[in-house]
């Protein structure tokens, strides 16, 4: 969404800039880079396990799944943990504070002052005292598996005011710097090394109506709580990607011969000749788009929408984004302007599709093309 806004605002300026040198394009994966973080909240018994929640109430636990890619495609968990060495920070985000606003306000901060996030201890919470426990913020999430850490939402007054948790992941590119140095640069407020990788994601705490209900049960006066709808809505959920359909043509001319059609599953490899033109369709169910309430003078209903991001490691994409439940794109297996070689270095070209809704829902898929032949 933010990218769309920025694009629209800068439309005129970019038209001018188009005449000059080119900046790296967003859809090309030229080096190790993060693409998304998915916060998967553990399903409550009885819920549909297919509908993974992206929003958690205090004391619920979520798994944090980062998506990294490099020119060879998505990076697996083992490599993430061993090579990128991510560390995770949780920070209490005030209502209306933009993402990364919590860390930004906390810096400069000495790394040694960054405490480990304590595990929530509901047994020590006595509602009769009228005092809510508070979480140190920011704090480091301790985990044995930095590629998919688990985090339990603590109890903190911030969440009752509509606040959330800002998750920040700090890592480093392979063979470039260290995570410790990157963390120090981030918290110290100094210039960061180009090899540092920083990602931030919101862990939405809610639904707010459920939080308020909980707070009232704990004796918090309703006058101190934000207005919420009477009915507790469903938690924010992740969208799901349906079928991926590929129609391959010999080239990008209008009368090009069709090579074949494919429905690759995540991670599948298809073999196609150099120069092929791939007409892509990725389907997501409109039924997964939830309705939610917008706060203001009154509560207004709003429906989520999809925002698809397309990435390739080699070749030319028609567009880097789409916003329809049925997303279409065209991928031509020819060297794009910013590609460094006429054919994929490893012979494999990867397409990654990340689908977001306009809240915290995100999912992704990918497939690869083994490119045969060459322009010669």
């Amino acid at each position: 969404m933010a990218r769309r806004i920025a694009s629209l605002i800068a439309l005129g300026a970019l038209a001018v800039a188009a005449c000059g040198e080119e900046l790296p394009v967003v859809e090309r994966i030229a080096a190790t880079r993060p693409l998304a973080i998915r916060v998967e909240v553990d399903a409550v018994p009885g819920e549909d396990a297919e509908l993974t929640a992206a929003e958690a109430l205090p004391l619920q636990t979520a798994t944090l799944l980062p998506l990294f890619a490099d020119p060879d495609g998505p990076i697996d968990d083992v490599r993430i943990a061993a090579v990128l060495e991510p560390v995770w920070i949780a920070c209490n985000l005030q209502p209306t504070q933009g993402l990364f606003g919590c860390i930004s306000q906390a810096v400069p901060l000495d790394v040694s002052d960054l405490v480990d996030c304590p595990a929530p201890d509901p047994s020590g919470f006595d509602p009769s005292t009228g005092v809510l426990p508070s979480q140190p913020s920011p704090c480091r999430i301790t985990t044995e598996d930095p590629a998919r850490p688990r985090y339990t939402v603590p109890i903190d007054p911030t969440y009752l005011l509509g606040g959330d948790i800002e998750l920040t992941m700090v890592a480093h590119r392979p063979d470039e710097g260290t995570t410790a140095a990157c963390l120090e640069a981030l918290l110290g407020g100094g210039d960061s090394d180009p090899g540092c990788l920083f990602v931030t994601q919101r862990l939405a705490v809610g639904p707010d109506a459920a939080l308020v209900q909980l707070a009232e049960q704990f004796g918090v006066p309703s006058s101190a709580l934000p207005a919420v709808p009477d009915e507790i809505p469903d938690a924010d959920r992740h969208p799901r990607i349906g079928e991926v359909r590929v129609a391959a043509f010999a080239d990008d001319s209008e009368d090009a011969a069709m090579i074949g059609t494919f429905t690759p599953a995540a991670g599948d490899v298809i073999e196609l000749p150099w120069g092929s033109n791939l007409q892509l369709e990725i389907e997501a169910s409109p039924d997964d788009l939830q309705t939610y309430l917008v706060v203001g003078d009154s509560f207004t209903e709003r429906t989520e929408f999809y925002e698809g991001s397309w990435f390739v490691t080699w070749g030319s994409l028609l567009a880097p984004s789409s916003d329809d439940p049925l997303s279409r794109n065209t991928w031509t297996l020819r060297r794009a302007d910013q590609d460094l070689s006429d054919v994929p270095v490893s012979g494999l070209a990867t397409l990654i599709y990340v689908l977001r809704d306009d809240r915290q829902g995100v999912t992704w898929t990918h497939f690869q093309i083994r490119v045969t032949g060459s322009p010669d």
Partner: protein
Amino acid sequence: MLVGGAMEARAAPAAEDDPAARIIPPQLIESVTIEYPADVAARNEPPKGEVIVRFVVGIDGVPKEIAVETGVDPQLDALATDAVARLRYQPATLDGETIEIATRIAIPFMPPAPAPQQPPVRDPDVQPGDGPPGDTAPADTEPGEALPGDAGVGGSTDDPNAPLRLTGTILEAGQRTPVEGATITIVPAPEGTETGRVKKREYDDIAVPRWQATRRADAQGVFTARGIEPVRVRVIVLAPGFERIEYVEQLAAGSSLEVKYYLQRLPDNPYRTVVRSTREDREEVARRTITPEEIGNLPGTQGDALKALQNFPGIARAPFGLGLLAIRGTGPNDSAVFIGHHEVPLLYHFGGLTSVFNADILERIDFIPGNFDSRYGDALGGIIDVQPRKGRRDGYHGYVDADVFDAGFLVEGRLGKGSFAIAARRSYIDLILPAVLPDDAGIDLSVAPRYWDDQVLFDYPVAGGNLSVRVFGSSDKLRLIASDANEIETDDRDRFETSQYFHRADLVYTKRKGPWEFLITPSYRYDALDFGISDVFQFDLGVHNLTLRAEVSRRFSKRAMWRVGTEFRAGRFTVEVDAPPLAAISSGSTGTQLQSRQTGWLVTPAVYSTVDYSPVDAVTLSPGVRVSYFGGSYNRAAVEPRLRGAVAVAKDTVLKAGVGMFAQAPAAVEFSAVYGNPRVALEKAIQTSVGVTQNLPYGISIDGTAYYTHLYDEVAPSTSLVRRPDTQLGPEVFANSQTGRTYGLEILARKQLTGSVFGWVAYTLNRSERREAPGEPLRVADFDQTHILTLIGVWKLPKNWQIGGRFRLVSGNPFTPVTGAVLDAASGSYLPIDGPRNSRRLPAFHQLDLRVDKTFVYRLVKFSLYLDVQNVYNRQNSEFVNYAYDFSARMFIPSLPIIPSIGTRLEF
């Protein structure tokens, strides 16, 4: 040899509510004949041209303070000043009282034609005729009467019973307005000359004519000649500021010939007498007044005088030529623009394309960069005050014009005892742009940039005063759908739209009675502003504004005047907003969307007063105060004392100084209960400035002003957690935590439009700094530009050609470097990690613009054509920094490349 034309000074046409309209100019009662000095004529290249002499006609009718403004040659200059000293006038009067008046006179010097060294060769294309008829300058008499230059047998007589031979009307070509005071000299033409316009001059034996008759055109431009010989005659018409024309006419016995002659105005008409009114006496430390005709044709302005404002010192250069009025290091929202006593929401279409009010129906543009009078309030920066003029009453006039952006028209003329002016303009970018945008651009312009504006002005004398009715407005609209090439269906998320509309109706009544001066002007204005980006931001605002300004001034003596006034502003607004919370704008996604619909009142009554007091002749003090209350949805009050003073330390040198307090209400969003903080207080500034104005010969003036402004209680973002007015804990969003200062020096060296050259050099040395909160470091402000140099020159050439150039050299704007970036995984876009704010600067800006104008003057109309070339040497100036998606690389977005544009105007 005729070496001296008629000498007369007249006040320029002026509005009836202006003292100029009630001035009876001095009448020449004793003229002087000047001979071209023989020793000067004997030079190889004897000088020629007009000596322009500036002087004051005293209450005794005797010229004094005589100074050469534009010289030709030291000897001729001395001759001219000596001649002026010997002129005698019936002094000027204002409301029956004798007054002194400053004026100018142009004395043309033309060396005598060289004596023929050999028999002349007649050019078959050359029409007959010779040089000026006679050696005697015409003396001055009442218009329409015979002049004492008549001589010889067959010349005209004053006998009203003598046969009428010739009746004529002298009109200005292209305008059809009478040229009062034109001198018509009639002499017999040589045998064999053909009738008609004499277009070329033949150097032949100069013979003294047998007789000569001289007439002067009356107020209607009419002259008559009686009793002259019924022969073929040469008629020579001379008028100050106009081209000399000559005709050969055949007069016949027993009949009267009726003619109309059209004179072309010279490019450098010196008869633009400056009449200083009491209003102009109350000068701010750095009030810069310009007239549209002076700067209407500046390069880079598309003929828009209001755009030329941006060339003055004190105004920061706006990127891409946008019309952001960042004055003395303050923000664009810190200054106010008034048209006809009331504020307008915008001055330019689409931020800078062209002004929203036709600059050709303006009387005056005042730019006051600081220490402005108590009449103006709710601003921390500067003031632009634009006064519309009355429609012309000397016939029906107007024009149709067109350039690459828009087309428009103006019609004006007399209406009973009053006058009217109607103008309108509409762009046609919305017709052209969709046709030239490539189909695969992914941009669907539902409404391409489209603007229009209209003005209807009506003035009428009522009860000894003047009533003006003004209705005008403007509309800008843009809506586009920007979609990716793979989009299946476009929707609101792909849209960008903006619409700004206002219309205003004013009544203005002014009256002067003795020492009293009254102004009362109610005004109603409706504003509508809509702005939408994607489906995440939508802002719709509608405001009904009612403004009433009333002023009373009284001059108690030559040394004291007092003005008191009141300004009442009331606005009934309805605003609907659907947007993320404001604090999110500079950081990542909030996951929150707020919606708000509010209706309310903003009521701002204010009273103000200023006293102009001169304890001695050379000193003027102007203490003033403004008391304002900002009521309705926002409750604050301000008392703003102000003091200005001026000391004339020499005849042409004035020192000025000012100090004052200025207050401004925060932006509506900043005190919004939903998006801002209702507790934020007024923003304030203390402005100080000292200046000097030095007038020099040849119409040159130098104005220097040093200024220092202390800003405090400015509103800045705040992330503190507070208990909000609704008792809930929440972010403070905004607080009056910011302080700042701006200081610098402005220099304006200006050559007035008195000769064929006009121009100025403007230089600003500026530093503008802000401290967002106590304990934070000072940083340069967003619009800080250390050096701003503007050179402008306009040359008016013969044959109605004009060429002008503008060169600008400006420090680059500050920008905030990015030291890193973080992926906002919720949105998929990167957030910059900023370094120290505004700690870097873009490269310096420099650009040359050129403009060439050519006007074709016909009898009834004028046709103008111009070519305006911006960025002549195609300098790639950097305007913004554009980053890669992850901020790992950057490039500068260049300013507009070389852009030639043409425009035309047909004027009648």
